[in-house]
């Protein structure tokens, strides 16, 4: 119980830090704290493989990518948030979503559900158990993740392709226009 309370406080502190931090770098660091607290919580819920995957994939790969982009885009800048065109819209929307979240929390606490029973199946949550599920009955999800990652890699290449070809094409088009204009003259 004490462990859960400590982890919950750490996770919530990280979560609140993400949305109140002024600089995106601080948000990223708070998010890393949140992710690591959740990873330890996974360990207590006997999901060892997921705890390791959470630390390696989230806190490792994803957050490094985030920090890289944050430092690339916000280096040496102090961006003030501009004035609203519609005053108060964000506060109202935030308050509404906060109320919805409060309803979620209250509903979760009021409906205890079945008590957690001991005596887990063998290999529950270990690498062996997850592998047996992923290569057995849930193979379709593994294939789905593989296709999704491949699609994402191709999508990133398409989104950030070099613009040189486009510039050359534009130049060629404008040259063609001037040539045709000269021909008309």
């Amino acid at each position, binding site marked *: 119980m004490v462990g859960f309370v400590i982890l919950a406080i750490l996770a919530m502190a990280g979560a609140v830090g993400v949305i109140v931090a002024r600089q995106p770098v601080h948000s990223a660091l708070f998010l890393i704290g949140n992710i690591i607290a959740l990873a330890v919580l996974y360990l207590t819920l006997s999901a060892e493989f997921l705890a390791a995957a959470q630390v390696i994939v989230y806190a490792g790969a*994803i957050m490094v990518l985030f920090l890289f982009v944050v430092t690339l885009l916000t280096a040496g800048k102090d*961006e003030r948030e501009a004035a609203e065109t519609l005053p108060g819209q964000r506060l109202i929307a935030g308050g509404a979503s906060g109320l919805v979240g409060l309803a979620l929390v209250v509903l*979760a606490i009021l409906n205890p559900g079945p008590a*957690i029973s001991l005596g887990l199946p063998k290999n529950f949550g270990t690498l062996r158990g997850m592998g047996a599920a*992923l290569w057995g009955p849930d193979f379709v999800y593994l294939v789905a993740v593989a296709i999704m990652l491949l699609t994402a890699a191709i999508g990133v290449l398409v989104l950030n392709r070099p613009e040189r070809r486009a510039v050359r094409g534009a130049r060629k088009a404008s040259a063609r226009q001037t040539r045709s204009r000269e021909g008309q003259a």
Partner: protein
Amino acid sequence: MIGANWVVALAGAIFAVGAVGVMIRKNPLIMFMSAEMMWNAAALAFVAYARVYHAINGQVMAFLIIGTAAAEVGIGLAIIVAVYHRRHRLDIDELSSLRG
């Protein structure tokens, strides 16, 4: 071991904080991080229910969420960088017009 409803309540609270972050911030990077936090909250709920019902499928779903988040971060950050190269400002309200 405590009841799973408290873990699910924590997941709901983190989800709510993420939703509030998406609503009130204007920096697309911070909004994106809040969305990541919402993914994480959903994965936590899946893991909690997997523990309650002794079903490994819940953990498989959480694995799916981690994979989805990895793919989504790649695409999303690529979009943010591409937009930044055109507009040179990090403000979500810059993108208020569409052109077909």
